């Protein structure tokens, strides 16, 4: 299928594929095995300007949109979801600044982010605030020209590796969700330390850890937007980033599919390559159908976002859910086609299957996505109703 990428979009695709091929695929198994953050690859991505892809040109970026970011994420995910998670989480952490930062805040941080000099992380999740993000317990109390942060964030991608953190904390407990605010926090701020580093099932090249705030002082200049906007910042950020998770699904599914297809052409049983058997043919055909449908959906939504659409919650949730359910199904089937070989760590598909699972969970589980989708459906129906 041709997705009619323009010349520069095709350049992004070619460049990231080359990086994935030369720099990621040769080391992905080792990074996974050793649960090691891909410092060298991050350096290459920075040198190739990929951290500036979606950052406006005035701040040193390339000023591209969701389509280009999805292309880059898809190609990285085709090689290694751990690496693409580290890359995509950087975008997730940057959106609060892009969407809600003041000119001064953008000037202070975006050039370093665009060049890849400083990595970013997004801190929303806590032990008691996962799907129910309103359960946040980290507090930020105004104290002179500062806020004092106390609490612990959990499962934060790029935690400890990132230099810049966007954090959601409660500034007014009495207001519930409307009492949350978003802050920019720099590494090495006094009172800000890192807790447990998680041991994960997959995406083990990405780092996931706790952020611990103990009377951590954040200057009031680092408040994003204004007090009480924390939830809106978080929800608008997730609206933007969700499509990236969808493109991760397309990428990892594509990677697993190619491995299975190649294996099936060469694996001989009953005196012929197993791709000659209809059972395998139908599985491969179903994988191809699902991947192409997911890709078409992801890039349609990305283009819709880039067109300046305001209401993107439902469509991005639809794309994320479909593409990541496809990723789980396709990677599982890739292991099945490859049989015992697929289950062995010698081949990459078992890792892809382990990695794919997180896509149905993070940045809003696919169950929460379905809630979000249906809430939009109800709203739309109600609007239709009032028209009648």
């Amino acid at each position, binding site marked *: 299928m041709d997705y009619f990428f323009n010349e520069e979009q095709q*350049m*992004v695709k070619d460049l990231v594929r080359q*990086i994935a091929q030369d720099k990621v695929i040769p080391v992905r198994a080792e990074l996974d095995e050793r649960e090691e953050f891909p410092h060298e690859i991050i350096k290459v991505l920075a040198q*190739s300007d*990929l951290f500036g892809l979606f950052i406006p040109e005035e701040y040193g970026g*390339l000023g591209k949109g969701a389509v280009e970011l999805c292309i880059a994420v898809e190609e990285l995910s085709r090689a290694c979801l751990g690496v693409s998670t580290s890359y995509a989480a950087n975008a997730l952490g940057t959106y609060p600044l892009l969407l809600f930062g003041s000119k001064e805040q953008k000037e202070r941080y975006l050039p370093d982010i665009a060049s890849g000099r400083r990595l970013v992380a997004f801190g929303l999740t806590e032990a008691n605030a996962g799907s129910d993000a309103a359960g946040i317990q980290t507090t930020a109390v105004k104290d002179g020209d500062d806020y004092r942060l106390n609490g612990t964030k959990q499962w934060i991608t790029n935690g400890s590796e990132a230099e810049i953190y966007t954090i959601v904390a409660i500034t007014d407990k009495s207001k519930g969700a409307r009492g949350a605010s978003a802050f920019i926090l720099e590494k090495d701020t006094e009172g800000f330390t890192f807790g447990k580093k998680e041991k994960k099932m997959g995406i083990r090249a990405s780092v996931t850890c706790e952020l611990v705030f103990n009377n951590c002082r954040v200057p009031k200049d680092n408040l994003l937007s204004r007090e009480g906007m924390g939830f809106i910042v978080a929800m608008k950020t997730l609206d933007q980033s969700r499509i990236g998770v969808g493109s991760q699904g397309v990428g990892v599914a594509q990677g697993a599919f190619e491995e299975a297809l190649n294996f099936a052409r060469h694996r001989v049983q009953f005196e012929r390559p197993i791709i000659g058997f209809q059972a395998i043919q139908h599985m491969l055909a179903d994988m191809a159908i699902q991947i192409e449908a997911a890709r078409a959906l992801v890039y349609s939504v990305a283009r819709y976002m880039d067109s300046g659409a305001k209401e993107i919650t439902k469509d991005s949730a639809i794309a994320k859910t479909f593409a990541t359910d496809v990723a789980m199904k396709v990677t599982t089937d890739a292991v099945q086609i490859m049989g015992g070989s697929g289950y062995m760590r010698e081949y990459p598909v078992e890792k892809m299957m382990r990695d794919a699972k997180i896509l149905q969970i993070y940045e809003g589980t696919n169950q929460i996505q379905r809630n979000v989708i249906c809430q939009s459906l109800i709203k739309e129906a109600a609007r239709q109703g009032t028209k009648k």
Partner: protein
Amino acid sequence: MKIVVCIKQVPDTTEVKINPQTNTLIRDGVPSIINPYDLHAIEAALDIKEMMDASVTVLTMGPPQAENALRDAAAMGADDVALLTDKVFAGSDSWATAYALSCAIKKVGYDLIICGKQAIDGDTGQVGPAVAEFLNIPHVSYVSKFSSLNGDAITVRRLMDDGYDIVEVSLPALITVVRELNQPRLPSLKGKIRAKKIEIKRLNHTDINVPPKNVGVEGSPTQVKNIFAPAVKKDRRMLEGTADHQVEELIEALRCIRCI
């Protein structure tokens, strides 16, 4: 400092097909790349540029489609790119190629010239050193490390069969480089976008004051009579056991075939 890097566009395969009539390479239908050793030459130049005030011009001689190799070099970060292209250059051997390149290099100006140690298609390794001869400047081939560099001289490590030499050479000079020198960078996105639009200087034989009789088939003192892949001898024997035992066996085997 003005650095000129000479590169060659080569077919992206080790399975090079030969035209049996002319005994030259058939390039049609084979994807082309920058000669891998030349990537190390470009990287070396860009490295120097990052350390000191320098400009990098990448030069190639070839058919019009060699433009693609130059755009790839620009995407890596070359400041200027120039293509030496003219029908009269067709069929040049390494002597005529080096002559044409040296005339073009005189035209663009230079302090340091960097080439890959050889091209993976022709494999002669002659063009770099011959360019230096035509320019009457010193050259050091097989450079695996830069030790120091200032405006007047450069100290490098030259890889030899039995070790290495440390050589100081005054500038202007030409060096040819080996893989061990560095790790060529990938292009950047901004570089690729810039490379798409970069103006490629095209030079023909009149631009560089080269009489047609000195280049092309006419200007080439060597002619390829035949190209063939050396036959692979498959009969080999691995000696096993202790070193002493292996030596005894080896001496015996060499005696048998009357080598000693």
